[in-house]
């Protein structure tokens, strides 16, 4: 009887500790070493000649997220010099000064300004997107899924709580100062879709 009575405050205390740790939020770092292959940033161009996708696993940054309050923020950095389109010559063109100019602008950055929870794991996120040295405010839907450390995270090769973030939005290359040469018209679209799928771990 006494033991049962004692267990109630202990349970309340531990529940409160758990809720406090959630309320404070956690910082999840994007693993760009061992499990980097799981982080995918891509740019898709749908043109008359063909649809091609440039892909890279070089994604870094961190996400701050509180699963209890569903509040968070984050900054994600993509290395454009590692984007692979499947054709080496096109990769070189993409890096050149006429296109992404990766020597001058070595990072593509997305940094959140405002995060609003929608339904389930979906959030409406407004942030600054920087490409080719030009920063523009964009709003997109982000799916952020959370898994506390356990058997599933261990099986997947993660050591800690995990969040998986995925989003997709369209941008106009012209808005970011990238002009498509007449020679490439029909091969590269003016509007491209930027997609991101990345995992981050709280340690």
């Amino acid at each position, binding site marked *: 009887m006494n033991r049962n009575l004692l267990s109630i405050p202990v349970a309340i205390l531990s529940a409160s500790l758990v809720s406090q740790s959630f309320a404070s939020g956690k910082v999840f770092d994007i693993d760009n070493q061992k499990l980097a292959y799981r982080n995918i940033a891509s740019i898709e161009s*749908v043109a*008359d000649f*063909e*649809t091609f*996708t440039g*892909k890279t696993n070089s994604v870094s940054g961190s996400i701050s997220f509180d699963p209890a309050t569903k509040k968070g923020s984050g900054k994600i950095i993509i290395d454009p010099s590692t984007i692979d389109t*499947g054709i080496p010559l096109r990769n070189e063109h993409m890096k050149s000064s006429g296109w992404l100019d990766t020597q001058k602008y070595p990072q593509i950055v997305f940094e959140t300004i405002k995060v609003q929870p929608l339904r389930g794991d979906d959030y409406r996120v407004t942030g600054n997107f920087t490409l080719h040295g030009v920063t523009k405010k964009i709003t997109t839907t982000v799916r952020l899924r959370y898994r506390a450390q356990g058997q599933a995270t261990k099986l*997947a090769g993660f050591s800690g709580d995990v969040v*998986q973030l995925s989003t997709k939005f369209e941008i106009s290359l012209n808005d970011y100062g990238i002009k498509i040469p007449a020679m490439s018209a029909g091969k590269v679209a003016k509007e491209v879709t930027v997609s991101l799928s990345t995992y981050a771990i709280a340690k």
Partner: protein
Amino acid sequence: MRLPSKARRAFFWIGTACAVVSITTLFAAPNVRQTYASKAVLTQIVQVDPAGESLFGDGATPIGSPQLMIIDDPKAVVPAKGTSDVCQVDDGYLKKNNIYPLQLKTVDFFVHWANMISVVGLIFGLILSVQFRKKS
């Protein structure tokens, strides 16, 4: 100025050859397109990650959007898990084996331009051959 008969004959045959090649192309192009179209499948290139399935049920991450593609190597195809009509293809396998899948829209693009050039070639060839046939 009147061209020598040898030159006129040469222009006549160039025009005729141009017209014949153009007609052949105009007839062949839809068949070529049909051959590729019969092999094309709606394909989604994915990055396979079996370990990731235990977390959120995603065993593969899509890269880009589904496209009509011609996949000649069946080993590139990821076994289907659901009832989706979209064929999943492993990006890692494609990269490892230097495979760049042909898209049906690329075939369409070439067929379209082949048809356009053939129409121009046919008109040009007919004008050339008729012009120099009349005067010879």
